[in-house]
């Protein structure tokens, strides 16, 4: 067995890990912004907004991320745009994350007891004020553990960006393996690097949950 794996390969993997982090951040920020809007629409008194956001979530949650990636990638080229793979990956992950995180945050908003809404209403606060001053701050506390937990899903799902050619960690692993043909070593290392990225987040999420003693566990895990 020729031990072809050297420090250059390791550097390449680490670079890939760096891009994984970049894409994860993009997905979290972008998906978070859109997801926040989705969550607000889901609890809106306006029926059209509500139904629209429900349809959006059902559609995205019923589609594999891989298909979303392909749709975005080929959709962009139809529009005549030739953009780097990271844009397609970032865009599709934003859409994907927005649907899941929107649902998680919707659950957290609804987990704030009805009595809080009523108390705020009786203080003559407008709906926007009620949301901003009373409900959302409390929902934020409830939302922290599942959001941190979902960040793990985001990091893992960036691995699919490899399919549209973006060289993040999984793609880096494929490239290295294609050159030295040591799948066990290469992919074990790749898995190990993902583990190092994800496990601290998983652990942190559990800590937050214990501290919060949330009885209602809002859990969505995307493979």
């Amino acid at each position, binding site marked *: 067995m020729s031990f072809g794996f050297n420090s250059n390969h390791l550097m390449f993997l680490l670079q890939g890990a760096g891009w994984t982090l970049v894409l994860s951040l993009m997905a979290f920020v972008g998906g978070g912004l859109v997801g926040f809007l989705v969550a607000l629409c889901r609890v809106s008194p306006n029926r059209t907004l509500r139904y629209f956001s429900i349809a959006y979530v059902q559609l995205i949650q019923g589609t*594999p991320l891989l*298909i979303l990636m*392909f749709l975005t990638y080929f959709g962009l080229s139809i529009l005549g745009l030739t953009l780097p793979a990271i844009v397609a990956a970032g865009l599709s992950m934003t859409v994907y994350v927005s649907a899941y995180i929107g649902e998680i945050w919707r659950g957290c908003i609804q987990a704030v007891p009805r009595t809080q809404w009523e108390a705020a209403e009786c203080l003559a606060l407008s709906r926007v004020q009620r949301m901003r001053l009373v409900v959302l701050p409390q929902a934020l506390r409830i939302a922290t553990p599942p959001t941190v937990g979902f960040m793990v899903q985001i990091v893992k799902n960036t691995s699919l960006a490899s399919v549209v050619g973006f060289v993040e960690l999984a793609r880096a692993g494929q490239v290295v393996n294609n050159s030295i043909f040591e799948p066990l070593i290469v992919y074990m290392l790749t898995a190990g690097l993902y583990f190092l990225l994800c496990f601290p987040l998983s652990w942190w999420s559990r800590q937050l949950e214990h501290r919060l003693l949330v009885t209602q566990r809002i859990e969505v895990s995307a493979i």
Partner: protein
Amino acid sequence: MTYKFDFTAVLAQWPLFLQGAGLTLKLSVAATLVGLVIGTLCAIGRGSHNPIMTRACAVYVEAIRNTPLLVQIFLVYFGLASVGLKVPAFVAAVLAMVINIGAYTAEIMRAGIESIHKSQIEAAECLALSRPQIYLHVILRPAMERVYPALTSQFVLLMLATSITSQISAEELTAIANRVQSDTFRSFETYVVVAMFYLFLSLLMRGAFWAAGLVLFPRRRKLGTPL
């Protein structure tokens, strides 16, 4: 926009799509059934008195849950081949998915098992039931009833994730989509059609699980209340 959408060329390939969808379902059902067993065993092992057993189960669950399915699939398919075990893509796909879903199921079943109050187990012990009997009759069925929605969601997600096995050329729906779009040059339309297929499969699976729930949980069927 000069692009003209043309779905007819893609829709003409519907027998191929049906074939791919069939394999997606086969993959999903196989992985679901075996994964459920493994996950339940692991959840039981997690609560065992043997520290090696609890440790082993915990390591398995954490390792799987903190690494991507894509890398797990590569490890199984290419890793096994590199040590001389050349398995067909379908087998490698099922194996990787079973290992993956086992870990997630274990977490869900663990939550269900822990939700069973100690007094239930005490009552069962005082009726002279053995440990395996207690698990079977008093713990597992109500535990599963409690976490059934979470289990259903998890297994539907599993079905969607089978799309990833296209990367090792398992001939499921996404692999078919890749093939069709390269033949027809209608990439966007192909993936839209395939997305519709997946949506339909999700509904199908949810329906199947709902029906199974009616059979497995007669109390729920008759009374309609949560446990």
